[in-house]
């Protein structure tokens, strides 16, 4: 993947576009008057990089913190702790104020209807961002129409319409056009195709791939659909209860999962290929309450490999292969888990 030449590029192609380090967000729950009694640990110390020009997928069950991560990254909600770097500069810091960052990073939301103002025409919605940044109205409208054509909506027919006059797939194309109107480098796609039906979903995914190449974009692609993630993503991060439990190249993570949770996620997906059949038992029960997560490894109560040591030690992300990291005691050499040394010898 050759990253596009971009005048705004600072660190060169080797520097990640986004670096997230130790990101923490706890939502306090207020009970009546008085101070918070409990906190939801929505995102609890996650690290990942998004490389320039790649598509990083984030997968996990609902409530695992995928969307919260996206909103924290975009600065829609403030984070409690941790560092967010965009091309080497702290987001919202002195060198990269939030307003400048937002020119370079945009987001497409899941609900295509709720993300368009019902009182504004399509072209007005798309041109809003550029106009805020000082583009004259006439030129902003012209650009909006060109973008509409680019996302496959004939401007003459659609530019003057209102959101309710469009189908879900058409609206999502408009949302993509709106995100592109500010000429961003990073686009966060938060379940952007999940609400579309399968044939439309495929069209929009292909559009996203084309646009990525044309505009030199980098995607953060959040989804619960492993098939879609396998299709569109270069790398995948698997989240469980506010933590990243596995991250690595898509074919490695989804082809040969190292974390038992990733394996269970894949096993829950009906497979038509007998060679891919997973031997792991399917996941039982719901994810635990993020207000009071389990001790040690957060996955141990549901884990097929769970051992007493898992309830005591909290595994950190550790490399197990090229660019492939996993947070599991059973994969860590020297850990007290019974499987750990065995895997070490196998690898040697």
């Amino acid at each position, binding site marked *: 993947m050759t990253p596009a030449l971009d005048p705004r590029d600072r660190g060169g192609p080797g520097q990640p576009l986004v670096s997230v380090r130790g990101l923490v967000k706890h939502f306090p729950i207020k009970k009546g008057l008085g101070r918070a009694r409990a906190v939801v640990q929505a995102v609890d110390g996650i690290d990942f990089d998004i490389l320039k020009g790649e598509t990083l997928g984030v997968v996990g069950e609902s409530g695992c913190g995928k969307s919260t991560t996206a909103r924290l990254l975009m600065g829609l909600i403030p984070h409690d702790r941790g560092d967010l770097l965009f091309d080497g500069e702290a987001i919202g810091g002195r060198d990269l104020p939030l307003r400048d960052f937002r020119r370079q990073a945009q987001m497409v939301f899941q609900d295509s209807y709720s993300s368009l*103002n019902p*009182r*504004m025409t399509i072209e007005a919605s798309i041109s809003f961002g550029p106009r805020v940044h000082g583009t004259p109205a006439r030129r902003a409208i012209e650009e909006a129409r*060109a973008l509409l*054509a680019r996302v496959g909506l*004939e*401007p*003459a027919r659609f530019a003057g319409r209102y959101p*309710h006059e469009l189908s879900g797939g058409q609206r999502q194309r408009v949302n993509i056009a709106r995100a592109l109107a500010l*000429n961003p480098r990073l686009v966060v796609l938060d379940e952007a195709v999940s609400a579309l039906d399968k044939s439309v979903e495929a069209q929009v995914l292909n559009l996203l791939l084309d646009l990525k190449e044309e505009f030199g974009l980098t995607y953060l692609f959040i989804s619960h659909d492993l098939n879609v993630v396998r299709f569109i993503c270069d790398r995948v991060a698997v989240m469980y209860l506010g933590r990243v439990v596995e991250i690595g190249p898509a074919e490695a993570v989804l082809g040969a999962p190292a974390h038992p949770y990733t394996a269970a996620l894949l096993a829950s997906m009906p497979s038509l290929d007998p060679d891919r059949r997973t031997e792991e038992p399917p996941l039982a029960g719901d994810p635990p309450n993020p207000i009071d997560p389990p001790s040690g490894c957060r996955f141990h109560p549901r884990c097929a490999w769970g051992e007493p040591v898992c309830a005591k030690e909290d595994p950190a992300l550790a490399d197990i292969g090229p660019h492939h990291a996993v947070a599991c005691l059973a994969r860590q050499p020297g850990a007290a888990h019974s499987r750990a040394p065995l895997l070490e010898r196998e690898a040697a």
Partner: protein
Amino acid sequence: MSAPVQTASLTAPALPAAAAPAPAPAFERSPGYWGHVGRKLLRDPVAIGAGLVILTIVAVAILSPWITPMDPYRGSMLRRLRPIGDPTYILGSDELGRDMLSRLMVAGRLSLFMGVTPVILAFLIGSAIGIVAGYVGGWLNTILMRTIDVFFAFPSVLLAIALSGALGAGIFNAIVSLTCVFVPQIARVAESVTTQIRQRDYVDAARLSGASSFTIVRVQVLGNVLGPIFVYATSLISVSMILASGLSFLGLGVKPPEPEWGLMLNTLRTAIYVNPLVAALPGLAIFLVSISFNLFSDGLRSAMEVKE
């Protein structure tokens, strides 16, 4: 893979030659949101009827100094409490022998003024408070809305009378006290509507585009919240007219001999056993205007519901 030139591909229309026929197609124009509302309203016979009644009454009230058949202030002790259908007094005469029709026409001016003005003022003030509280949220919302809640502890009639009594009688003070009664109600509606809109993804998308809060409220929020608040405000006009009449009835608003529907109702109260139909006429006028405003605001509400 070639490196795309970003800005060029954004500004130049990227239509493939096959998809773009030589003559530029005419741009389709949607009639727009208010166009839809207007058309739907025109198809609602009840709303049209109510609107026509309001227009007629407003026109008559405005033109009354020139079109009243008789002097609304000159009475005749000999011709008091004539019944409806009297050859001289078409709608009868009041307890001082003044022509009811003329007085009803002139009274419309003050009654409508006192009914509509507090609602307009409260619409402006209440919307501002509610939208700020709803959009900013957090502590500011708590402080503003709990303060507003204090006003709800009093029944609106009692509040209007108390404020009016404290400020003293008079049209201006009556309007001020009625405005104070309606501001909390409108602010509460505005706050709840704004809080809902605030959570829509398009507001987040607007924040992501780097717009200031003021721009977001002006462009993205206002158009979506003013409609529902306006509908609620029109339904308050009838309440306002009745409260204004009530204040005049108690002597806290308009003073005799100035004609005002509430005041006329008060003075004709003594004649209710002598000539009940004539005594009920000001009430009928209040009822007609109130119900017209209510029906019109109902029609407006259903016309403003966005199709999904």
